[in-house]
């Protein structure tokens, strides 16, 4: 404290000098930017969820007017409230795009990474505060562009979130907006990832060596490298596709392509597969961008609530680094059926099997960490615990997709949808919820209600499984993922069609199950129980060395010095049962 007390007027000065705009809108404080990211991303999460609810209505009750929102969708999308196939395609493309690029990544990296990483490494802020601010505003602009694309003639992008050409090149104007939005989002993530890596390399406090970093920081570091190196090829691909659409080039347009009985203009000679390679070169590492921060959050919550060190911390760290490397050479397992050749398929099938090893290491380590702990079943812990089996199901159902032979049957069916939603929805999103409940007291100094938290958790947990488990059944029966009527026209889909209503009703109920969360989030800001600086009795710096909420600029009243690893829970010599990373003990006890 002594540093602050000698210059109290300096600190006051900072507070009073800042205009409202600088403090809350164009702030350069990583904590404010983290909250901005979090709020925006949660809004997009809800928006993406609403798009999905409309799709689920259409799948369960094709041809019937959509209740409540049906009237406001406009005659171009849903005349008389009945959804047109073109609009269904828009919803599909935009649900994917929004959930991945505007909701989950910004929440996992922009919000949690921004808020927590500098605090966990003892830094006063991110290395480049101005870039951090820019990164948020470029992201927000990208979000506005994506959202606005619903209102251009022909509506939003409708060629799937993967935007495969030639379909996407000949699609309506919304596709160009999609590409523009993506370029903005890529720029934002580039600024962010440089910032994260520099911050973690340069701003760790004294004593915080690599193997003393909380696992969450490691997860963010690997994630940042993935974003930094995997996104640029998609940017290149985005430029190519934009050129194809706007300047009539033929990067992705083969010669003599016939659409609706007419030969498509342009010189031809391009390669549609080229787009797929460039797209998946990003989009596969992107899967690990979605999952690694989630694993990081779960690791923090589990260590804290089992009151013991993580089992196999070092293996987890090495596994996540290996995962990062491998994620760059598995992308073409999304392309087994494109005709790229069996030799290439074999290579990518092999790397795909190899990459499952580090994921299994991390998951097993988290599971084994529970062994022998005296577990506290609070809300964040419930979500973190649910993550383990849910991600497990998501991961294991991926194996049949990773084998090029079994993928012939399963590709492009609801099985795929079930698989990756298990990874991302009850997997990553549950981890995000765990993070919100866990770090909310850090941001506000107040706890969220545990009762409302459990009211949020249990229905969500059950309903998520009700939505996604039947997708495996439908997918194994061969139902394609892209049918706007849920497969009514197909004989082979008939025996499993009745699941559509079940899944959709579960999805609508899931919407209501989120109400306790929204209520809890907003009520607790002012009315939550005050909880002191370290309500979870955590060892990591963000809890132990900084007040809740942390000092407005600079985070720590006094720069901490780290003496030990991140999860020193229940060391026998300590009466309190936990040893903060920066705490000093008498030399006689330290041995």
């Amino acid at each position, binding site marked *: 404290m002594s540093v602050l007390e000698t210059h109290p007027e300096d600190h006051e000065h*900072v507070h009073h000098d800042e205009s409202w705009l600088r403090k809350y809108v164009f702030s*350069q404080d990583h904590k404010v930017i983290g909250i901005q990211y979090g709020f925006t991303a949660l809004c997009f999460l809800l928006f993406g969820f609403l798009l999905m609810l409309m799709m689920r209505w259409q799948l369960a009750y094709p041809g019937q007017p959509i209740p409540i929102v049906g009237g406001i969708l406009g005659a171009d999308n849903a005349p008389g409230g009945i959804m047109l196939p073109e609009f269904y395609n828009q919803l599909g493309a935009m649900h994917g795009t929004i959930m991945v690029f505007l909701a989950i990544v910004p929440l996992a990296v922009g919000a949690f990474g921004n808020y927590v990483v500098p605090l966990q490494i003892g*830094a*006063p*802020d991110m*290395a*480049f*505060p101005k870039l951090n601010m820019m990164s948020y505003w470029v992201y927000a602009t990208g979000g506005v562009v994506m959202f606005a694309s619903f209102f251009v003639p022909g509506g939003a992008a409708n060629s799937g979130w993967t935007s495969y050409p030639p379909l996407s090149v000949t699609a309506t104007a919304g596709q160009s907006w999609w590409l523009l939005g993506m370029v903005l989002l890529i720029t934002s993530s*580039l600024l962010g*990832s*440089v*910032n994260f*890596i*520099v911050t973690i*390399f*340069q*701003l760790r406090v004294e004593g915080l060596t690599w193997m003393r970093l909380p696992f969450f920081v490691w997860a963010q570091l690997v994630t940042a490298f993935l974003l*930094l*190196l*995997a*996104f*640029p*090829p998609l*940017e*290149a*691909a985005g*430029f*190519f596709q934009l*050129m194809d659409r706007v*300047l*009539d*080039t*033929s*990067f992705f347009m083969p*010669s003599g392509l016939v659409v609706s009985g007419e030969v498509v203009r*342009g*010189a031809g*000679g*391009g*390669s549609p597969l*080229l787009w797929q*390679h*460039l797209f998946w*070169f990003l989009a596969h590492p992107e899967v690990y961008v979605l999952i690694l921060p989630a694993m990081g959050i779960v690791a923090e919550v589990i260590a804290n609530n089992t009151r013991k060190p993580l089992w196999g911390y070092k293996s987890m760290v090495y596994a996540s680094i290996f995962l990062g490397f491998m994620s760059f050479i598995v992308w073409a397992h999304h392309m087994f059926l494109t005709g790229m050749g069996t030799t290439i398929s074999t290579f990518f099938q092999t790397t795909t099997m190899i990459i499952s090893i580090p994921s299994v290491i991390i998951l097993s380590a988290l599971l084994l960490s529970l062994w022998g702990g005296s577990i506290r079943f609070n809300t964040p812990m419930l979500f973190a615990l649910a993550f383990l089996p849910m991600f497990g199901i998501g991961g294991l159902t991926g194996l049949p997709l990773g084998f090029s032979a079994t993928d012939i049957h399963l590709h492009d069916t609801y099985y795929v949808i079930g698989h990756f939603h298990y990874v991302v929805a009850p997997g990553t999103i549950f981890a995000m919820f765990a993070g919100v409940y866990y770090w909310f007291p850090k941001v506000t100094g107040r706890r969220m209600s545990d009762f409302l938290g459990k009211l949020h958790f249990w229905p969500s947990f059950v309903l998520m499984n009700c939505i996604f488990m039947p997708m495996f059944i439908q997918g194994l029966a061969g139902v394609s993922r892209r049918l706007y009527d849920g497969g009514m026209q197909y004989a082979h889909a008939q025996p499993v069609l009745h699941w559509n209503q079940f899944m959709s009703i579960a999805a609508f109920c899931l919407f209501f199950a989120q109400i306790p969360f929204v209520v809890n989030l907003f009520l607790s800001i002012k009315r939550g129980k005050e909880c002191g600086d370290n309500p979870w009795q955590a060892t990591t710096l963000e809890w132990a060395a900084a007040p809740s909420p942390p000092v407005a*600029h*600079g985070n720590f009243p006094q720069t901490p010095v780290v003496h030990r690893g991140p999860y020193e829970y229940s060391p026998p010599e300590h009466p309190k049962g936990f040893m903060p990373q920066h705490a000093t003990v008498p030399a006689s006890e330290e041995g």
Partner: protein
Amino acid sequence: MVEIPYNVEARPDTGLYNAKLGIWLFLASEVMLFGALFSSYVLLRTGDPNFMTIPHEIAEHLGGHGESHVWSDQLNVPLAFLNTLVLIFSSVTMVMSWVSLKLEDFGKYKLWMGLTCLCALGFMVIKAIEYNAKFSHDLFPSSGNFLAIYFTMTGLHALHVIGGLIVNGYLWGPGAKMWKTEPERFTNRIEVAGLYWHFVDLVWIFLFPSLYLL
């Protein structure tokens, strides 16, 4: 504002100040961007047997220029070679501007940095002449995939040159005030801008042979 550690001085265990690590990471991402562009060029060129061939109707239209039926013969090698020299020279002047600051000779800095900016301008002028020659012969990105790749890659490179020109122009003009208040930080900025500038130069060194000569 908060004092961010290692903004100016290097962190002992990494040996870098923040911005220098930042620019190297940024350049790594740029390598991936141009890497994807070059790979796409290779894939398109090897994937289409007619990639380099000028179609008949365009070749006739080109008149006197249409002796050869290979796209790359339409590019102006002497001008591009001149541009290569201009960029290499500008990389040298960029280093000299940084060295001048290290020797605390601000006047020399202004001279060398000014020359760097002039070279960037010169590069853009020559590039514009080249582009204009193509347009005046009705050669556009849509004419064929070789030209599409040519315009996309040189165009993105030109955007990078313009970006560098803006940064260097700022550091030569209004940004140079920092020399009086924080000379060390200012010198670092020149070093960081220089690393970027050399990268832009390097991209051209790859672009020139692979588009014009091969």
